[in-house]
């Protein structure tokens, strides 16, 4: 007698799975079929579930309750845990998909229940469920997408409000309003609207006061459908005494009034003068407040106040874009492009007061600015290169440039880029050097490689021209690449430094937090910097240049025979970490956080389960890069 499986068991299992990716995205029918085919197994704490000796993997495991860890099969120490799996997570996908034995040992770190799915049903599910397949084949990529979606959902409503709604109405009025006397005929008004392609027109009294508004919607309702003759005065069909708001009231007031009264247009008044119309569409359009507009504002800033205002806008637009789910890569590019713009403009303004352009100087950005990887909370790291011109007194040139640099550094500080605590700024005589001096300095660091030199190279080797003659920058970079190649000792020491801080992946539950730091993880020190440092070393070793971490990784890949997958995953992981940092900084800004708050620390427990998982995955990639470096330099 064929027993009918109890449907409730499948439903209950499906309910548990649905809390996790990719099951949350699967069609109900697929999920129920999957659930109905599951078995439940139990593994005591410490028991070995899978190992290379198990042979070809024929089963998918999904953690129902408990935690599993995968460690390298040739484990010598506890530090070889390469992955951990919490509730709702699947393993060993790679081995199962590849029809091979696993290369890792999977152990239960707690008493653990797992669902298991046998291979034939697993294959069926792959074939029938696109989300499941996408998940299995592009794990990190799908996770990232899901996280971006989540971010977008969590932020979007708030971001939209924020970007648009605090600004005064005055800013939203784009062009001078189109008006006609209220004695005009309907025909004349319609002709005007058609020829100027406008959706609304404001009617004015003889004294120049607005008396009414007429819009496209009114054409339909009050003219076309009513069949009234077109020769009537417009005043008979216009909306008389339209609602007005003062130009300095915030956009939110306009939105509120429109929503409450059902108006689509409001007249904006400035001291009794009519200055323009704001429509519902304008309000929505503002959300797309463009990067171009902001760029123009920056380029046109005539005073330091204007520039500081634009720089603030950069940050708030950055936060809004973060909320709209813009990928970290685009976001950092955007921030860095606009920050570059601010720096350029500050230099241009400073040059007006003190023209030192005859020195042929080049202003360079260093560190994260040099790499184009700035976050929302970035202090200044900059320097100057100037040419060694014959017959010109180097010290005299330096003296002039230092005075100029001080002016720029102070301006940037006013624009919200705090002065560098380590005094790595162009106004410091140590970092305002001629090209020959820079080469000498670099050479010195590479030869001596003492701790300070190593520290300096992590900042100064990431340089980029922000203003002036880029040829000097190229020359310096060529010099650096040519000299480092012959200095394996220096690279080895850099490598040793780069693997000192290990990404916080532990053997229990995944992410290891620092107890005395409130159970948090330092995303900069323990995660982002690992990628940055490793990419720098790899690019120097391969002699391929590149300044940004992503560009460096992409360039070294073919030279070091890293697979596209490996590089792609590392880059995705780096971007994810950067995004978490941006989000954290954004949140701090929003809370008006004190200076004591660490802008780079997050509590993994406070992340969504999905983000926590991706973070773990990202940290795993950081560790992988370190392992590669350690192997390369036999550390």
């Amino acid at each position: 007698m064929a027993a009918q499986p109890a449907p409730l068991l499948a439903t209950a299992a499906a309910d548990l799975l649905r809390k996790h990716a990719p099951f949350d995205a699967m069609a109900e029918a697929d999920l129920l079929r999957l659930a109905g085919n599951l078995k439940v197994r139990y593994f005591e704490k410490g028991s070995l579930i899978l190992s290379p000796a198990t042979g070809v993997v024929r089963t998918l495991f999904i953690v129902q309750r408990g935690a599993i860890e995968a460690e390298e099969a040739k484990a010598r120490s506890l530090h070889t845990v390469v992955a951990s799996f919490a509730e709702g997570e699947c393993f060993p996908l790679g081995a199962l998909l590849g029809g091979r034995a696993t290369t890792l040992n999977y152990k239960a770190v707690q008493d653990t229940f797992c669902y298991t799915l046998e291979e034939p049903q697993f294959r069926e599910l792959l074939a029938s469920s696109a989300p499941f397949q996408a998940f299995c084949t592009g794990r990190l990529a799908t996770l990232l997408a899901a996280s971006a979606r989540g971010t977008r959902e969590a932020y979007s409503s708030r971001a939209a409000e924020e970007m648009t709604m605090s600004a005064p109405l005055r800013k939203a009025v784009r062009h001078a309003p189109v008006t006609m006397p209220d004695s005009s005929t309907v025909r004349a008004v319609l002709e005007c609207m058609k020829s100027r392609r406008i959706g609304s027109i404001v009617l004015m009294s003889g004294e120049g006061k607005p008396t009414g508004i007429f819009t496209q919607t009114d054409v339909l309702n009050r003219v076309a459908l009513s069949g009234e003759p077109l020769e009537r005065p417009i005043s008979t069909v216009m909306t008389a005494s339209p609602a007005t708001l003062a130009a300095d009231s915030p956009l939110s007031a306009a939105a509120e009034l429109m929503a409450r009264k059902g108006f689509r247009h409001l007249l904006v008044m400035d001291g009794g003068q009519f200055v323009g119309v704001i429509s519902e569409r304008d309000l929505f359009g503002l959300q797309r407040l463009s990067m171009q507009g902001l760029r123009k504002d920056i380029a046109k800033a005539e005073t330091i106040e204007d520039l500081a205002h634009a720089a603030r806008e950069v940050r708030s637009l950055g936060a809004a874009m973060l909320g709209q789910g813009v990928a970290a890569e685009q976001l950092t590019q955007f921030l860095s492009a606009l920050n570059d713009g601010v720096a350029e403009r500050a230099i241009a303004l400073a040059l007006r007061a003190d023209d030192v352009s005859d020195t042929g100087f080049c202003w360079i950005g260093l560190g994260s600015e040099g790499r184009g990887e700035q976050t929302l909370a970035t202090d200044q790291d900059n320097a100057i290169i100037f040419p060694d011109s014959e017959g010109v007194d180097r010290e005299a040139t330096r003296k002039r440039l230092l005075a100029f640099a001080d002016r720029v550094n102070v301006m940037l500080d006013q624009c919200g880029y705090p002065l560098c605590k380590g005094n790595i700024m162009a106004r410091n005589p140590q970092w305002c050097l001629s090209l020959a001096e820079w080469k000498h300095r670099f050479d010195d660091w590479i030869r001596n490689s003492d701790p300070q030199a190593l520290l300096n190279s992590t900042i100064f080797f990431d340089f980029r021209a922000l203003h002036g003659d880029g040829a000097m920058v190229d020359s310096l970079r060529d010099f650096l690449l040519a000299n480092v190649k012959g200095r394996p000792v220096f690279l080895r020491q850099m490598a040793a430094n780069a693997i000192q801080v290990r990404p916080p992946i532990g053997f229990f539950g995944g992410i290891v937090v620092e107890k005395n730091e409130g159970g948090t993880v330092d995303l900069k020190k323990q995660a982002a910097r690992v990628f940055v440092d490793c990419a720098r070393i790899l690019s120097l070793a391969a002699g391929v240049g590149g300044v940004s971490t992503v560009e460096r990784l992409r360039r070294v890949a073919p030279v070091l025979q890293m697979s596209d997958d490996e590089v792609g995953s590392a880059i995705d992981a780096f971007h994810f970490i950067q995004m978490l940092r941006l989000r954290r900084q954004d949140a701090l800004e929003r809370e008006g956080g004190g200076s004591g708050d660490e802008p780079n620390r997050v509590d993994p427990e406070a992340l969504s389960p999905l983000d926590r998982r991706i973070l773990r995955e990202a940290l795993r990639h950081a560790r992988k890069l370190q392992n590669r470096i350690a192997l390369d330099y036999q550390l």
Partner: protein
Amino acid sequence: MGIGRLWPFGPRPSRALDPPVAAALSRWLDLPEYNARRPVREGRWVVVDVESSGLDPLRDRLIAIGALAVVDGAIDLADSFEVVLRQAEASSTPNIEVHGIGGTEQREGEESPSALVDFLAFIGKDPLVAFHAPFDEAMLQRAISATLGVAFKRPWLDLADVAPLAWPIASHKPRGLDAWLVERDIQIAHRHRAIADCLATAQLLLCIQPEASRLGAHTAKDLLGLVGKGRWLA
């Protein structure tokens, strides 16, 4: 059909059963017994949970049966069984009037035999597992005897007795299933539906199986025998 053979378990079915039900019952009766010497974690155990109209196994009626197999140390969600019985016997007891079951369902009372015989087919001759097994056992014995006319004497493993042996507790108060689920961190949705309680009990069984050898129980028979020992010790 083997009906004429010597029958050691009490009276043969006396009432007239539908031929398919009688055939199924006969097939079940003819099934070989499970191997009592098999290791604890091998073979099939069937977790059973019943729901009734009350807590008195002599008087209250059987309303639902859930059953779930644990095979070779794994719960197979597809190897499960769930049935809601409309009524044990169509026209007999005043109980039915007490529970207000109408004429339509009385006429459908005949589904009980097929439901119970399906249940027997599902469990086969494998050992049964329950939490507070005597209650489930009594309810089933009465229903099966009344409906199918056969005695229902199967080996039962009562996890309410075994769990305190596996994880000794300080308190002398007996622990309910819920307390054990909390202790073992087992989470079950839809508790108190028969089949969901089976899943809970089955997961508890999975946790107990690895402990069995520590308790000196290596075979299925050993494990079933622990219960008596446990009672005796307590």
